[in-house]
């Protein structure tokens, strides 16, 4: 049987109706008669149970997974208002999906990663071709803090083959860090990490879309604790950023969150700019009393030299990267694309005058596309699975 993949979306306020509408659309768009597996995502303003009930009106017995997210991307829809939902339904004899889940992320990301990694390892067969890892980013604590991807993926990668393509994303519902939900069949969880093992007569290729360039000279982090950068150049971090923005910049310091991005150049310090050499870290929040920046990840260390990063203002780079992805696919037939895009890259937050996901839609026209806006993205950089900020991780599944 030919592989059929249908994608649907909705942005109704009523969670049940939205779930049902998106699932119906997916069935119709994919001309699907036998739903085998579904990816389901809903915005943070929705009731997850009602959403799931709505989806189950259409595909009650289909294995499914997904979660609540900052926004939704499909072939024809992009939304990040909190009321959008997306459903992708697969029907294939060639591609198999197996779902694994592990909880207690907020207690210990590394342990959760270890347990999930072991489960995945025991299921991996010769035809395994890809792994998606979605996890709850919100630790639900005050001051705002995330579940960190760095220990999570460091644990997982011990259990999976180096050649297995990996893409991951952290669910973040909104700017209030509201409770995040993860769906596994008919169960709704929080503080879980979900692994989806993709196997069969297919392959998964992955590329990273960055879109950032350095715009300052090197500055050194001089005091950091976990994800909180207290000082840069021995001065309070917020003051340094303030200074870099110049006098009378008129920007509310709270809005440094989701805007200020620090890049670490892992290549030649004074060599030509190579985007792939940079690991970017986005600011999650500002700690005003301590004049500190709270980063998405805790991997910036004392003494790290960083640069303030700016966003690419032209969309051309998207097409270039996607062409590279299509080349990777070679003679295989692309059947599905999946995009995990940083919430900060959505147009209202990115500061650039184009919608990055729209460029992805255009470049992949004709190939079913779905995805979600995330807090943190993850993909292989070299041999390691690297948590990333202000990036888009794009996967292309192709059949032999």
């Amino acid at each position, binding site marked *: 049987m030919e592989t059929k993949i249908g994608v649907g979306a909705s*942005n*109704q*306020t009523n*969670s049940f109706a939205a779930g049902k509408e998106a699932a119906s659309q997916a069935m119709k768009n994919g001309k699907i008669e036998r739903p085998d597996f579904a990816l389901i995502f809903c915005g*943070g*303003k*929705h*009731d*997850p149970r*009602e959403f799931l009930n709505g989806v189950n009106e259409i595909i009650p017995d289909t294995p499914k997974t997904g979660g609540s997210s900052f926004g939704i991307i499909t072939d024809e829809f992009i939304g990040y*208002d*909190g*009321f959008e939902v997306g459903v992708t339904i697969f029907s294939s004899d060639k591609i198999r999906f197996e779902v694994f889940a592990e909880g207690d992320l907020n207690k210990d990301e590394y342990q959760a990663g270890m347990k999930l990694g072991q489960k995945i390892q025991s299921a991996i067969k010769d035809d395994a071709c890809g792994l998606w890892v979605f996890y709850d980013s919100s630790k639900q604590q005050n001051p*705002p803090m995330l579940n960190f991807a760095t220990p999570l993926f460091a644990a997982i990668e011990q259990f999976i083959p180096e050649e297995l393509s990996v893409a991951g994303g952290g669910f973040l519902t*909104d*700017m*209030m*860090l509201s409770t995040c939900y993860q769906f596994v069949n008919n169960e709704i969880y929080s503080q879980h990490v979900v692994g989806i093992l993709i196997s069969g007569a297919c392959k998964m290729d992955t590329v990273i879309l960055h879109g950032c360039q350095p*715009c*300052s*000279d090197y500055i050194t982090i001089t005091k950091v604790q976990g994800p909180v950068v207290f000082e840069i150049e021995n001065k309070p971090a917020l003051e340094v950023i303030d200074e*870099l*923005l*110049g006098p009378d*910049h*008129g*920007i*509310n310091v*709270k*809005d440094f*969150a*989701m*805007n200020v991005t620090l890049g670490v150049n892992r290549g030649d310090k004074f060599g030509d700019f190579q985007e792939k050499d940079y690991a970017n870290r986005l600011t*999650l*929040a500002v700690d005003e009393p301590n004049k500190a920046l709270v980063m998405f990840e805790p991997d910036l260390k004392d003494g790290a030299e960083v640069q*303030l990063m*700016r*966003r690419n203002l032209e969309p051309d780079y998207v097409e270039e990267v996607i062409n590279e992805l299509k080349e990777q696919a070679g003679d295989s037939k692309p059947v599905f694309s999946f995009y995990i895009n940083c919430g900060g890259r959505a*147009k*209202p*937050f*990115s*500061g*650039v*005058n184009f919608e990055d996901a729209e460029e992805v839609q255009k470049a992949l026209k004709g190939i079913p596309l779905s995805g979600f806006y995330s807090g943190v993205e993850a993909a292989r950089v070299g041999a390691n699975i690297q948590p990333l900020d202000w990036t888009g991780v794009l996967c292309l599944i192709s059949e032999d």
Partner: protein
Amino acid sequence: MSSNENSDSAQREINYYKERLKKLTSSYMSLEYRNADLSKDVLQMSEGLKVIAELQNQKAESKMEELLESLSEQINIRLKMDVTLVLIPDEKGSFIHSPKFIKAYAGYPIEKVKSLSIAIPPDFFESRRYIIFNQGADEDDFASSLLKDFDMSQFLLSPIIHNQQVFGYFFVGRRSQLLQSGTGILPYHQNILDAMGGVVSAVQNQIDRNVILEECVEERTKELKKEKELTEELLLNILPYETTQELKATGYAKAKDYNVVTVLFTDFKNFTQFSAGMPSHELVAEIDFYYRAFDQITAKHGIEKIKTIGDSYMCASGLPVVKERHAQDAIDAALEIRDFVNQVKEERIAMGRPFFEIRIGLHSGPVIAGIVGIKKFAYDIWGDTVNVASRMESCSEAGKVNISNVTYELVKDEYDFDYRGKIEAKNKGVIDMYYVERKKKPATSK
């Protein structure tokens, strides 16, 4: 130049470019962040404009509830609100409003909010003002109560104006954002809601017009119904009920054969002489007096009036609905007409006023009945039976009911008769004729 001088010069150059880079970074990054901020506004504005553009698709005949439900949904999604609702006055002109058409994020206490009664301060209501409230702004009592009632940290309350009056209010609200300050509620949000209020007003105008129109239609329908009843009544005066129904259903009425009916003719004796000495309007009034009475008598006995020709009154029993006792009914009517005319005669004699005497004749037999012509058409009957019945009348005498032997055979057991013998009827030969005297008295049981 010494190496120290070279080194100093190089350092100055480095410092110069570092400073330039810093300045460029400053202006560039502040521009970028401001751009991000503005971009949020522009995006929301364009979404707001989309909502307004979509209003063009709103049908003018929309029901108000459906319109408000749809607007509330669109506002909430497009303008990225956490809560949108419409405050509707409990009664027209009331300051007490109830939240309706609530659209909100999961977890918002919709049922609790639905049960609230929001008192709009009279001066605020009269002023038709709006409120934009953002975090940190000064709160007056009303703003404070709205913040508390709707559990929002920033909101816009925008009046829906209809015919210079407040029809209700749009309320939109957002929660405070943990990570960013957010741009809050801006004046253009009010502009968008104002435009939507305009649509609500336009639809309400249409609804008001429809109500007036419906009242007019109802009134006109009543008039038409009355006119129709009048027309039908008039038609029934001209045609039998069954024929009117056939005419209405098919547009025409077919002539029908009847095997046997009884035809009755009356004629006033010496009418020509009588009318010669009487003013026309008095004569018409006299005839009208008698014919009205005949109409009542024939109707009472279920007899179909066919027509009057001068002083002659013609009716038939047994059509258009066939009935078994057509002859008896016709004779009963004839006797009653005879008695009525005789009674009037006696009264007139007593008063010394002129009076009529009447001849009545009946015959039974087959006829054809129907309508002919297209103007001033009338239901009529044709056949030899009609002619014979007319002869029965002309062969009758004043104050007598003359029947043919055919009719006699149908009723002979029920009346007392005076056999008149065989009498020559013009063009019809000799016919046995009978005067009907009275209905037989029922036999008294011993």
